[in-house]
């Protein structure tokens, strides 16, 4: 290791000022974080519109609103957009870039230019993916792209899908490298690992998963593209290949991807709850070990997605046990959050409401997850709406709720203004009711045998599907108060001051919005980020 000292790269004189920064190749971690957030939210609207199309089609048992092929395209784009262009970039790249340098007491990420490259891979990847719909055919094989299905559907859409996911995977890996280096190497002198805010640990664990598992997906998709373009037979049984190997390699990434989506959310909740409950985060050390436990276990549970793929009995046994074990560290975290709230001076604002909604939804999704880990049950409901309900409780009820909580919590830091509270509460209740109305009934549909990913279904399921679609409509409506709130509050919102929540974590100890290199003076040394109500603090009531 050389000892070259690096000057900061954030203040290149050529970079534009004002709002144009957000359209530039800026290397400021805060600009990049907001670029991720806004870009991700635009894709969320696209993915939401696609979900609206799905739920509209499912109002009736026959395929009338969308042709069957279009329905397949829509569900494939919906899954891919929501996972790869909304949740993963926003909850990692968005909040991670904005907060992690503050939390470690640095002026920027370890590799600011690489950081900007990682972000700017995303818009072209997204446009590439969506463009496939207009230049022939969008991919039709679901976000899993299982062969042989992905080999028999139109090639152009599938190849563009692969290119897009490769770009997004590259972006994710670059981001992961940056987070690992920033958290491990860029900590302010005097700041110990076990004093870091929990989101740092969550991002460290997430980034380890990204670095270890994303390349496997990338390699697999390259082989899949050979199968499509060069007619090799890696995964094509008709040519002597093995489609199940694709499933193994795909899920070696895509199960950890679930943790890549929820571990950062766990970290964000751990930042928001203590501030609004005015209590220290309960069980810091067990939280850290739980995150690392989830990282290790998360890498050895992938085949629970494949219990109906001819998996041998020993494998079923192993993956059932390993998956059930994940409930332990996850459960520890939930008890810790409840204990954090217990006896606290809870401010039931929008951020807190979304966090509470997250806890309720995720516990439900976690319970159905443990149920799905059991082979006898999984074989019954595999590829039914039960699974659809389950994973939406994890990724929407879990992560997206936390994304909204985080936006309400950190918006004052981003802009210097508060979001409107009554509009926020309206947003929460519409989302919470709409979400549960949409996805809770799907468990019933799945238990009764309605398969996922089809445009047509048995007429006996129509009423429940209509209830689910009504919930989806509420969710769509809920976006309106949020959009209005975010746009208007940026200009007319109540002035927030630097620290509206009386927070102790380092991002609150600078101005709002923060200056280019985060602090005008020395970075504060925060060794007790959760010292609420423990030690007298000048700004803590």
């Amino acid at each position: 290791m050389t000892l070259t000292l690096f000057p900061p790269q954030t203040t290149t004189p050529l970079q534009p000022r004002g709002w144009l920064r957000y359209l530039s190749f800026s290397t400021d971690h805060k600009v990049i974080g907001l670029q991720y957030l806004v870009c991700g939210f635009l894709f969320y609207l696209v993915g939401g519109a696609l979900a609206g199309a799905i739920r509209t089609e499912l109002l009736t048992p026959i395929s009338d609103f969308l042709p069957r092929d279009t329905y397949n395209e829509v569900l494939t784009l919906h899954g891919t957009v929501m996972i790869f262009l909304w949740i993963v970039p926003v909850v990692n790249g968005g909040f991670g870039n904005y907060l992690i340098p503050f939390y470690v007491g640095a002026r920027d990420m370890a590799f600011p230019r690489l950081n900007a490259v990682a972000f700017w891979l995303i818009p072209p990847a997204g446009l590439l993916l969506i463009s496939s719909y207009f230049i022939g055919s969008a991919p039709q094989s679901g976000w899993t792209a299982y062969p042989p299905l992905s080999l028999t559907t139109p090639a152009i859409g599938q190849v563009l899908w692969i290119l897009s996911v490769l770009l997004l995977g590259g972006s994710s890996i670059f981001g992961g490298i940056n987070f690992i280096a920033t958290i491990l190497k860029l900590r302010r002198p005097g700041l110990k690992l076990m004093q870091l805010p929990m989101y740092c640990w969550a991002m460290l664990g997430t980034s380890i998963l990204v670095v270890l598992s994303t390349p496997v997906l990338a390699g697999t998709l390259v082989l899949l593209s050979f199968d499509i373009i060069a007619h090799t037979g890696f995964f094509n049984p008709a040519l002597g290949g093995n489609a199940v190997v694709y499933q193994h390699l795909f899920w070696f990434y895509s199960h950890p991807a679930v943790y890549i989506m929820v571990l950062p959310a766990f970290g964000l909740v751990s930042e928001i709850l203590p501030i609004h409950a005015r209590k220290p985060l309960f069980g810091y050390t067990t939280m850290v070990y739980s995150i690392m436990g989830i990282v290790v276990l998360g890498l050895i549970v992938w085949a629970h997605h494949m219990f109906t793929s001819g998996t041998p009995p020993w494998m079923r046994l192993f993956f059932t046990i390993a998956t059930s074990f994940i409930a332990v560290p996850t459960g520890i975290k939930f008890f810790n959050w409840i204990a954090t709230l217990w006896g606290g001076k809870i401010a039931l604002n929008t951020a807190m409401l979304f966090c509470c909604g997250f806890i309720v939804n995720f516990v439900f999704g976690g319970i159905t997850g443990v149920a799905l880990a059991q082979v006898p049950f999984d074989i019954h409901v595999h590829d039914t709406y039960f699974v659809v309900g389950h994973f939406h409780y994890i990724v929407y009820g879990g992560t997206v709720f936390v994304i909204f909580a985080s936006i309400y919590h950190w918006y004052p830091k981003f802009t210097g203004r508060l979001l409107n509270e009554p509009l926020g509460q309206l947003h929460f209740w519409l989302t919470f009711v709409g979400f549960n109305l949409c996805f809770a009934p799907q468990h019933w549909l799945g238990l009764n045998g309605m398969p996922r990913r089809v445009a047509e279904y048995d007429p006996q399921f129509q009423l429940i599907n209509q209830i689910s679609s009504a919930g989806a409509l509420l969710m769509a409506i809920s976006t309106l108060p949020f959009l209005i709130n975010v746009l208007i509050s940026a200009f007319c919102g109540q002035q927030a001051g630097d620290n509206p929540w009386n927070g102790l974590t380092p991002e609150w100890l600078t101005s709002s919005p923060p200056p280019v290199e985060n602090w005008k003076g020395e970075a504060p040394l925060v060794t007790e980020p959760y010292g609420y109500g423990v030690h007298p603090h000048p700004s803590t009531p």
Partner: protein
Amino acid sequence: MSSTIPASQQHADLQHAGQYHADHRLFGLATFLVADGMTFAGFFAAYLTFRAVNPLPAGAVYELELLLPTVNTVLLLLSSLTFHRAGTALKQGDNARCRRWLLLTAALGFTFLAGQMKEYFSLPFGLTDNLFASTFYAITGFHGLHVTLGGLMILIVWWQSRPGGRVSASNLFPLEATELYWHFVDGIWVVLYGILYLL
């Protein structure tokens, strides 16, 4: 935050608060190589599974010649050694000697690639013949891409370490990064050789 900061604190700021920090690029590269290694790990896992559960069609040839790949392995291992010598020379400030070792390393790398080409053209199967053939070409080809990239990087460092170039005893990073990458590519080949040729 107060906007008036005592001069002593501003000094401390420059020294300690992350305004300047040590060079972590090698650490970043090492993390990237872990990721790159996982790509190979995925390919190896796929190959081993294919071998274990997918019988080849009758009459398929999958016997590989051993002599050429073994010579190639020795060449690559030697090139790691020569690269190490180049690094040692640069640290001692002897750019001329460093550049000779770098050229030798690049030559060994490109000889390896030539050998690989020769093997490709003499093999009795093509990319799409059967599962073994496809996997063989995909894995060795992916590794060959790495060697090509590494060889080009060595030539770039060779050019940069000319008298007056940016690489010298006071700026080791380009050479160290290339060296780390080259050792990684060699290490992957050893595993690949064991799995594809010997097993």
